[in-house]
């Protein structure tokens, strides 16, 4: 490990580090534009110049300078500062002075660094460069005259997002960052370009000219548009969520955020349920809370528990699910299901429904088999992590399912169940790859488990994992990739059929036959509403979507930005959202609605505060308890009873997501997401940009 001196402080860093990294390790921040720790080093902005000896008597770019034994670095010597001032002056030659109308104003690297290294007046009297507008799709707006050519966006698109569509054409002063063919960036991570851009060249189209960063209230929260549990920051002003940014969490999302989580938020302002409704004379009529609760109480009175059922949707929080479970069981009903897609997990074994290796575990894996999933759409951030691992080399990826462009090279083994059976039996060549791998991994998507034969597929995957060493000492590479933020929380909270209870299929069949005549939908919108038959339907949720349309009583709930709620991500990581804004109108936090309803129904729940609800959650599963470690159970067999592969249908594996930009009530209500669907096409990855 070379030892060097930076600003008089001696530091020892691993060989191969750069001077900039070494300085950072002792808390010395060197200004930079092009350097980004998650991208390759470009060394083209020259802002990070430092004075280094021994060496040529001129400043060196610290981001691209490897450390060497005995180096003496001065980061703010007069020479270094003068050099940076020169660089800044050159950068500002062609940068417009339009900060007052620029969206980046207030959070602009160039602005901040110009304060430190800029001269207070310009010596440049010649005409400035102007660059033609570029089109980069419905999410990213461009003002390329502001571009300082740091190439972060190009490197992000090429390296992280895996869509090499951005490039720098021309040269020198005439260099322009562009797609050249004027088309939308075909990535589910394109919003991150906005975060990476150190100036106002790439900005958030949906947030254009809306607010200044210092006006915003910043609330740390969790994204619920997929099951990754991306850590986010919600920026709001007044009662409005204005934008969402990712937070850094190395174990989950690093610092990326998928486009749906960032851009679907305008859906929070549309189609909202802001007051209770009760169906009278065949039409939903506005009502008061008392009337709505009264209507439910009347229906429930004297009804048998066996005729009642509850389903939870993809964005339901764990708090509301545990209270609804308690309420239903006090009413005598055991028919609950949080799997509105009918996925077949073994709810008694956590390993059967978790991303066991953890998302960070992808970094360690050396072979991967994806079954029935399109991670690019189901969890773009996880897909980027897989790509990152792929780029490091020594990582074989294969996929069983429809051919998809996953942004990294992989072998498509076919879409049929046969292939999976062959791999499990060890007769397929890829079985050998998994067997010899030190840390093999399998990702089982919802496309494999929501089929009618899902339980048999699960059993087959279980056999495969056991036989091919996917699960071994100190490594569990059996990973289930969920698509719904609420799912694992629901499973942990026990929102599953009790003894003699009906599951989703049972409930739907019961409704059709009339055996079930009361259904409580907790934000469940993606079920076949027609199959609910004549049942009395209560819908509690935030948006007027399919569920509310069918409901007899509508109870307006809070969206994820409007409540303190618990979500468990696909790894089984318990995370909490925080309220950024209040729910609209008469809408209330979901746990409070259930608590109030329970009193009207005469089965008062004992929890009077959120803390008590969380205590209740903690008593149901250790996952929800911050103080208790979650016990790791032994790897067992699961799937169809006995672990035997049952009858397998021949249908090919398909991803459950057919339109990335519209998967839930919020994104369906979002105008931005509708535009994206228009531009990027539905159900396929064909480019339909203006020139595509």
């Amino acid at each position: 490990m070379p030892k060097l001196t930076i600003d008089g402080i001696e530091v020892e860093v691993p060989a191969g580090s750069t001077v900039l990294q070494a300085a950072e390790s002792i808390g010395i921040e060197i200004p930079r534009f092009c350097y980004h720790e998650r991208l390759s080093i470009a060394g083209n902005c020259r802002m990070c110049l430092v004075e280094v000896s021994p060496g040529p008597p001129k400043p060196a770019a610290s981001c691209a300078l490897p450390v060497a034994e005995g180096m003496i670095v001065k980061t703010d010597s007069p020479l270094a500062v003068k050099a940076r001032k020169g660089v800044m002056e050159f950068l500002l030659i062609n940068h417009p002075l339009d900060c007052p109308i620029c969206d980046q104003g207030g959070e602009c690297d160039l602005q901040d660094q110009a304060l430190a290294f800029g001269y207070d007046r310009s010596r440049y009297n010649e005409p400035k460069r102007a660059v033609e507008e570029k089109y980069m799709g419905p999410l990213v707006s461009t003002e390329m005259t502001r571009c300082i050519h740091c190439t972060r966006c190009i490197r992000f698109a090429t390296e992280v997002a895996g869509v090499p569509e951005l490039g720098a054409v021309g040269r020198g002063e005439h260099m322009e960052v562009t797609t050249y063919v004027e088309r939308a960036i075909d990535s589910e991570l394109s919003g991150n370009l906005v975060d990476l851009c150190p100036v106002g060249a790439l900005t958030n189209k949906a947030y254009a000219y809306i607010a200044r960063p210092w006006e915003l209230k910043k609330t740390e929260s969790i994204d619920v548009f997929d099951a990754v549990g991306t850590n986010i920051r919600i920026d709001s002003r007044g009662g409005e969520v204005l934008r969402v940014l990712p937070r850094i969490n190395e174990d989950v999302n690093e610092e990326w955020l998928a486009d749906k989580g960032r851009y679907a938020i305008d859906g929070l302002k549309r189609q909202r349920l802001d007051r209770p409704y009760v169906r009278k004379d065949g039409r939903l009529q506005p009502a008061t809370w008392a009337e709505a609760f009264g209507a439910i109480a009347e229906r429930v009175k004297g009804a048998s528990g066996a005729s009642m059922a509850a389903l939870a949707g993809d964005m339901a929080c764990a708090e509301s699910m545990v209270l609804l479970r308690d309420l239903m069981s006090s009413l005598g009903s055991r028919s609950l299901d949080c799997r509105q897609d009918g996925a077949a997990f073994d709810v008694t074994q956590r390993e059967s429904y978790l991303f066991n290796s953890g998302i960070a575990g992808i970094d360690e894996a050396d072979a991967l088999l994806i079954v029935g999933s399109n991670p690019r759409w189901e969890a773009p951030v996880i897909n980027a992590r897989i790509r990152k691992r792929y780029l490091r080399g020594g990582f074989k990826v294969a996929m069983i399912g429809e051919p998809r462009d996953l942004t990294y090279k992989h072998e498509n083994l076919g879409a049929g169940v046969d292939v999976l059976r062959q791999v499990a039996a060890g007769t397929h060549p890829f079985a050998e790859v998994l067997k010899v791998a030190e840390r093999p991994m399998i990702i089982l998507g919802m496309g494999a488990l929501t089929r009618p034969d899902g339980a048999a597929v699960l059993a087959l995957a279980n056999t495969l994992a056991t036989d091919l060493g996917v699960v071994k000492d100190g490594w569990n590479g059996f990973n289930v990739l969920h698509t719904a933020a609420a799912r694992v929380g629901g499973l942990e909270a026990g929102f599953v059929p009790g003894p003699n209870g009906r599951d989703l299929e049972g409930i739907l069949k019961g409704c059709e036959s009339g055996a079930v005549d009361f259904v409580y939908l907790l934000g469940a919108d993606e079920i076949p509403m027609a199959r609910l038959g004549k049942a009395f339907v209560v819908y509690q949720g935030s948006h007027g979507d399919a569920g509310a349309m069918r409901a007899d009583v509508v109870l307006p709930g809070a969206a994820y930005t409007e409540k303190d709620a618990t979500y468990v991500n696909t790894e089984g990581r318990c995370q909490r959202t925080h309220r950024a804004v209040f729910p609209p109108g008469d809408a209330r936090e979901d746990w409070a609605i259930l608590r109030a309803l329970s009193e009207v129904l005469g089965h008062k729940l004992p929890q009077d505060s959120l803390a008590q609800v969380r205590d209740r959650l903690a008593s149901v599963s250790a996952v929800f308890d911050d103080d208790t470690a979650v016990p790791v159970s032994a790897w067992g067999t699961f799937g169809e009873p006995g672990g035997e592969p049952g009858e397998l249908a021949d249908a090919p594996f398909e991803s459950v997501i057919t339109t990335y930009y519209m998967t839930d009530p919020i994104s369906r209500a979002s105008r931005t997401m509708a535009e994206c669907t228009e531009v990027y096409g539905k159900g396929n990855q064909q480019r339909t940009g203006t020139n595509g």
Partner: protein
Amino acid sequence: MSSHAPDPNVPEPASFAFTEANMVEATKIIAKYPAGRQRSAVMPLLDIAQRQEGWLSRTAMDYVADLLSVPPIRVYEVATFYTMYRLRPTGKHHIELCTNIACWLRGSDDVKRAAEDVFGVPFGSSNDDVTLEEVECAGACVNAPVVAYKDDYYEDLTYDTAKALFQAMKDGKPLTPGSQIGRQTSCPEGGPTTLKESA
């Protein structure tokens, strides 16, 4: 970019493919690079495409990208960086006159005038017949002023010799490349001035 940028009014050809002979040439060039590094062949291949088509259309660049299995944008980047890749069609006669300091001091303005007189169009303009283009240093300063035409340099021009040269181009007569005053390569004008006697 400016004059180098593609002309939006010029339609893209519907398709592009190397001729058989060019394909043989391209295959040879690609084979020079180790496996997995075929993208290094991008510049010579673009040159072949430009020679075949007269200019580099996006269709041709996409073809080259496809041939080398690189994203098209990586080819556009190269093609737009170098001004000798033509992103818009040129006239039948493409005359490139150096006007950098050495050529300018040695009378490139006269050569410019000669071209305008012969072809009857202002310098810097382009039509189907002729493209009169100003280029940066051609790297032949000793024999300034210099004109590049097809793959040859025409050096030591004056108004008269340039006019004769351009007229010959226009009439399709054979041309003599190199110095127009009989200078041998870049020897001093009028023969050696030093080291005349051997020791």
